[in-house]
């Protein structure tokens, strides 16, 4: 076999192995991430929602405010009507839940809130939700799209919710910011081109490390690999 043929065979074999392993590596990356995303969504799926969250989502549908039966001592019917009026006047869709803080109702505090957000998102559109659990206790966030509301439960959830909640609801239009997310902005590597460039850089580093290891081994053993780069 002459040296040109020999070299071509090596290039072909190496190229095939490289292509195969690149496909396998991206496939593994895809599968791992898909699994993680599915696992993350599992506790938020409609069929595992707690009855408390289901009741709240159903109660929000008409006027945007829901008071759990156990939370009447927090907000009475008059207060509820005041909140509903404020919601009707606001431009942003707003949902207000008043309930007792509990982790004995089928999910942790945080998961209950996430289930509410998932349920609201499912219904479509984007908006803001407030969950009042008590003074300085609750959540304010956006659903359906990335956004930020400049209302902090630990600062702004004070006083009588029958007065505070309508006031906070009226502030939402002015305090909410929406962020448009497009796929390029969120790509840390800057798209396919940037990814290939970064990959070449990282790959050279990896090869350097491999070469270093091989060199050390060669010196330690006193022998080198058979053959040459070019025959």
């Amino acid at each position, binding site marked *: 076999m002459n040296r040109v043929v020999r*070299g071509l*065979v*090596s290039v072909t*074999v*190496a190229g095939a*192995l*490289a*292509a195969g*392993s*690149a*496909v396998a*590596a*991206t496939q593994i*990356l895809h599968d791992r*991430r898909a699994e993680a*995303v599915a696992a*993350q969504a599992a*506790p938020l799926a409609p069929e595992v929602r*707690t*009855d*408390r969250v289901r*009741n709240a989502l159903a*109660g929000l549908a008409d006027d945007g*405010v*829901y008071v*759990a*039966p*156990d*939370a*009447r*001592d927090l907000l009475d019917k008059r207060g509820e009507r005041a909140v509903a009026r404020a919601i009707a006047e606001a431009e942003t869709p707003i949902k207000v839940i008043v309930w*007792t803080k*509990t982790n*004995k*109702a*089928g*999910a*942790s505090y*945080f*998961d209950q809130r*996430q289930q509410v957000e998932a349920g609201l998102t499912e219904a479509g559109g984007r908006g803001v939700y407030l969950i009042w659990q008590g003074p300085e206790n609750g959540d304010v966030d956006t659903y359906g799209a990335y956004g930020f509301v400049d209302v902090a439960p630990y600062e702004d959830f004070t006083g009588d919710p029958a007065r505070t909640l309508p006031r906070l609801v009226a502030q939402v239009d002015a305090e909410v910011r929406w962020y448009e997310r497009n796929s390029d902005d*969120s*790509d*840390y*590597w800057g798209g396919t081109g940037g*990814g290939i460039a*970064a*990959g*070449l850089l990282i*790959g*050279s580093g*990896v*090869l350097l490390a491999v070469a270093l290891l091989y060199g050390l081994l060669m010196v330690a053993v*006193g*022998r*080198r*690999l*058979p*053959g040459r*780069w070019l025959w």
Partner: protein
Amino acid sequence: MLPGSGPDTGSDGAVFAGTIDEIVAALDQDPVLVEEVMGNGQTEALQAALLEKAEASQLPVYVVLTKAPAGLTTQNTAEELLTLLHARSGKDGVWLVSTADVGHVAMQVYGDLDPAVDDEFTLLRNASTNAQGEAFKAIRSECGDCQIHPALEIGVTLDVLAHGIPQEWGTQPLTDAQVDSYTSSLWTAPDTQTAHYERAEMPTAGLYAVVATVTALTVAVVAYRLVQAIGGKRHPRLRGSAKPAPPTLAERNTAVVDARREAAAAYRALEKALGRAGNRVAWERRDIATACLERAESRIGADDLLEVVGGLVLARTGSYALAHATGQYRCCYVDPRHGAATKEAPLGGGVQVPVCAACAAALAGKRPLAPLLSAGRFGSLAPYYERSSVWSRTGFGSLGGDWWQEVPR
């Protein structure tokens, strides 16, 4: 809300017993009251399951799982609510109460429910605790992270009560099937905490490109070189690593045999000379010879080359002491088998050591030395003076001093 205006209702009209009176009124209808706030996500199913167990109980039971009514005065709202409910209703029986803010179950037995036993409460609690232990074990074996809902404690206690108040200590009447039924989601809560900070997302196009490029580049280069290696000359030596090959085992064995012969001859010579010495030789010199003879004796037949060479040098040192009035025998530091040292030469680091003429020439010409080698733990060979032994410390006497005294007999 004003007192006496009827029970609380939520936005959807669901009723909530928010006061002691309302709870007592609810218990008149049904001995089990489970509110959504303590309903473990499936209030109706939990209420039904507990009610079924309560109806199977041989004794009157009252179960309340709710939010503590406003106005309670202690931290332990479950115990306090239980006491108030019993006082208001005046009903004897087994009371089991838990509130959302404490999370444990308060239990109390009122009235002489079983005339046969004196301490219904402790016997019941003991059996219930034992049964709960079994249930915990079953749950843990299925779901290591699952949390236990207070309803489980109540359910297990009601199952115990289906057999009446237990009559003895340390037992529990639940069947395996009953224990296993508590692994269902009705009694446990999965400890899921959806990701707070790290949100899993599908990889971006850029990340796919990075992973694919790194893998392809690395595999291509490494694979190319490995394929090129196929059929090449087998593991060629590196250029410039032409060290003299270390002696083989056979060569070393011959070396030991040769050294033994030489050492035995030197030993016999010393023995003879010492016998002849008498008073002509100063007693100090005779002492040295005797000491060397004693130490050489056990070494000349040894298997280790260094020991045999040590015996040889000891014998020569003894003979030298008898033959000369002053001074001592100095061998070649590099290899004592080279004989007596004639010169001093700098060896590694500029230290002057006595060497034979051949070694001195080799050092001057920067030619490789052939030192006495000693085998390490894994069979590797190195000059004896690079290892730690009595021979490397004394240089077989070439470094001077009463070195033989350091050599064990």
